């Protein structure tokens, strides 16, 4: 698409990148077909093609108003459009650039500013979020049902393996996952332990930075990235073979550290190396001999798998987890419209609750239509969101696999409330 950038943007790296993305778009409109919000609103402005137009106007010097910001805010960043796009338009990146430009032009109202500030001040910080969650859990009984269903119940982690293997991989410290569901990291460690790999928890590693970055606070997001790089680097030098991500939302971010920090002379090389070594947990398992992991009893394990957008569209790894689960004996119930977002999308469920709820209802209907015993997923955000209204337990897929390990305390009972 023809674009004429403003003079100052033409000289910025972001401007040039945006221009090359725009030029790849041929305006065919295929993307609207798989866009969850176009499905809800049926308005060009709430689909990728229209949003590309809105960003293009800003890049060409038109001053954005609240109208442009509203439609960009409504985007889930699920990137289903990128999977559908035959021309290879990097929409997600264009949106990030556009959002940050609009953020500077349009002042949000005070409530909105406060909400966004608060989210950034709490969620990426493990301790602060932990305190908040413990408080919420303690007063759960006196809250209205609509609120209490959103608070994830406490589940224990189980033991962390004590053995030390020659092969080592690094874990991301994370932000909300250790408080909400500490079992995910522990289950990851136990499964990897069976494969002869030690998973290292590294002090100093925390939030991946995605949340801040996608809320338009690019520098804050990149600072989180730098902290993780600092924490991991000595272990990389000592021979750790990979950084394993078991939350696909964080995975997508860490895999982009190299690109996002390319302009930072101090971090560029290390960031690129970290991105190279980053693997989604499913990628790691897919390459190992999994015969030692054990299988589920036949006919007892019908589940529905929700592949997070960050896994299938962001990392293009759709089908990998499904293959691992099928090999382990799980029966996967068919799920319609698998490409659609569940509505969690980072902070989206908190900032756009109405649209988010609508998408959640659709998604749960699709997931539960095959009468599964449980729902599996691969990202903590989706997990919490789905669990808030699901009628069956929702688990990270590694927990399902963990429950099949020989000698597991639940003895093949892969679902425990």
């Amino acid at each position, binding site marked *: *698409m023809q*674009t004429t950038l403003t003079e100052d943007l033409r000289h910025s790296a972001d401007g040039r990148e945006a221009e090359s993305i725009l030029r*790849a*778009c041929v305006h065919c409109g*295929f993307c609207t*077909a798989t866009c969850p919000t176009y499905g809800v609103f049926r308005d060009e402005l709430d689909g990728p093609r229209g949003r590309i137009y*809105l960003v293009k106007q800003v890049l060409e010097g038109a001053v954005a108003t609240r109208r442009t910001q509203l439609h960009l805010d409504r985007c889930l960043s699920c990137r289903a459009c990128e999977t559908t796009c035959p021309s*290879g338009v990097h929409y997600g990146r264009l949106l990030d650039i556009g959002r940050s430009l609009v953020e500077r032009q349009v002042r949000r109202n005070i409530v909105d500013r406060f909400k966004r500030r608060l989210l950034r001040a709490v969620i990426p910080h493990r301790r602060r979020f932990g305190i908040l969650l413990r408080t919420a859990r303690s007063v759960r009984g006196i809250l209205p049902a609509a609120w209490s269903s959103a608070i994830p119940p406490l589940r224990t982690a189980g033991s962390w393996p004590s053995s030390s293997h020659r092969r080592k991989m690094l874990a991301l410290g994370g932000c909300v996952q250790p408080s909400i569901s500490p079992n995910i990291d522990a289950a990851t460690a136990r499964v990897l332990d069976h494969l002869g790999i030690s998973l290292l928890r590294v002090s100093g590693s925390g939030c991946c930075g995605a949340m801040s970055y996608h809320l338009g606070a690019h520098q804050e997001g990149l600072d989180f990235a730098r902290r993780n790089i600092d924490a991991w680097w000595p272990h990389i030098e000592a021979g750790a073979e990979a950084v394993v991500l078991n939350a696909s939302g964080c995975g997508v971010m860490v895999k982009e550290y190299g690109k996002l920090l390319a302009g930072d002379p101090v971090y560029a090389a290390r960031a690129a190396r970290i991105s190279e070594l980053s693997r989604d947990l499913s990628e790691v398992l897919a390459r190992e001999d999994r015969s030692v992991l054990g299988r589920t009893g036949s006919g007892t394990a019908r589940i529905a798998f929700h592949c997070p957008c960050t896994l299938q569209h962001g990392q293009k790894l759709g089908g990998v987890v499904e293959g691992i689960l099928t090999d382990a004996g799980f029966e996967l119930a068919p799920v319609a419209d698998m490409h659609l977002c569940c509505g969690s999308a980072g902070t989206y469920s908190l900032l756009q609750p109405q649209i988010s709820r609508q998408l959640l209802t659709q998604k749960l209907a699709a997931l539960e239509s095959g009468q599964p015993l449980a729902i599996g997923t691969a990202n903590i955000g989706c997990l919490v969101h789905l669990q808030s209204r699901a009628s069956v337990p929702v688990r990270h897929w590694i927990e399902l696999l963990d429950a099949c390990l020989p000698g597991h305390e639940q003895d093949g009972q892969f679902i425990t409330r």
Partner: protein
Amino acid sequence: MVTRDLNPHMRRELIRTLRRSLPAAAILHDPEALRAYECDGLSAYRELPMLVVLPETVEQVRAVLAACSERGIPVVARGAGTGLSGGALPNADGVLLSLAKLNRILEIDEHNRIARVQPGVRNLAISEAVAPLGLYYAPDPSSQIACSIGGNVAENAGGIHCLKYGLTVHNIQALTFLTPDGRLLAVGGGAPDSPGYDLLALLTGSEGLLGIIVEIVVKLLPRPERAQVALAAFDDAEKAGAAVAAIIAAGIVPAGLEMMDNLAIRAAEEYVHAGYPVDAAAILLCELDGMNEEVSEQILQVRRILTQCGAASVRTAQDERERLLFWAGRKAAFPAVGRLAPDYYCMDGTIPRRNLARVLVRISEMSASAGLRVANVFHAGDGNLHPLILYDASRPGDLERAEQLGARILELCVEVGGTITGEHGVGVEKIDQMCLQFSAPALTQFHALKHAFDPQGLLNPGKAIPTLRRCAEYGAMHVHGGKLHFPEIERF
């Protein structure tokens, strides 16, 4: 582009009137929002509409039409905005009527194998909805993932499988449409023949000039027992053209018979990774469907013909997944060409099949002399060409050269006995070439028809049928073989 607002008073008054029937969010009027609607899939032509309306019910559509016809305001209908001839290009003084929100499947009648749907339903969504019954809707334009059935009817869309199963007009049974002043009319029906004029066929392909379609009854077909596709690679596009003729001459009716040239193969392969031979000058995709025995036998026969015609290799899909992948590449070929150049201009001419090889040679000569690359993707089986002219809109003069090259290609199609559009419609893009295709008396007849449905001339004005004056001006520029087109029209 400057926003034109010829009559702000009239616009405000219209908005006030429409607000009585539509919610505020369904009326877009600030330029920031209108911009996204300035074009459809043909982005070379752009215009800001006065308003965009997004009605949700037939009643709301009727209210919009009534308000516009009372005030003499033009109305341009739009479905998914994937059209490639500018049929949904807005009118600067008019209302752009989006039918995207009318997207319900109203009824599926398994026994009569029909579905009653609203115009905004996506083509593919129909087949997905009836798949559990073992049925599907046959016409499959490449944009079927996104394009709407209403748009398909308006343009009489075709697709890969129209060689065997026909165009949209052959696959619909009835229509309900609104006249420009808001009266609801139904045409067509269940019987094979019906008395009176065949208005169903007339409305199909009428490009939004005769009425606003609000409901469609589509025919459904049972899924064939088996479908198999052969992929043949050629080192010479002319040989591929000869193979097409040979397959048809052998009395085989493939479900689809498609050709792609090297540029198109490379672009599509980069997107789908279907295993297309990227060094081939051309590939043919030949699909056969029906009963298992029939398909098995014909696949052997086709394989033999392809080899005899000089195919360097012939493969058949190993499984259903690979068959779909072969087609996914073909269906995504247009936009995938966007990987080769910032812009492309998609043509849609038809030619008699026997001239395929000759026309391909002429197109490549024209492409060389214009200095613009042309990728060829086409429905070879029915002689429907889609040359994609690659250009860069940000380079001054490129678009004009692309348009000129496109016009010359269409003139070539008419010259060898073909037509200027196979399935994309005329829209605004090919309106001048209509003057080559039709004589003045024929065009006068078209205008009389238009007048019978839309006496005020409010529906999609300026599209599909050129005025005689426009043809006279166009003819003056294109004196062909010493003969002036439309000599009887007075020149200015």
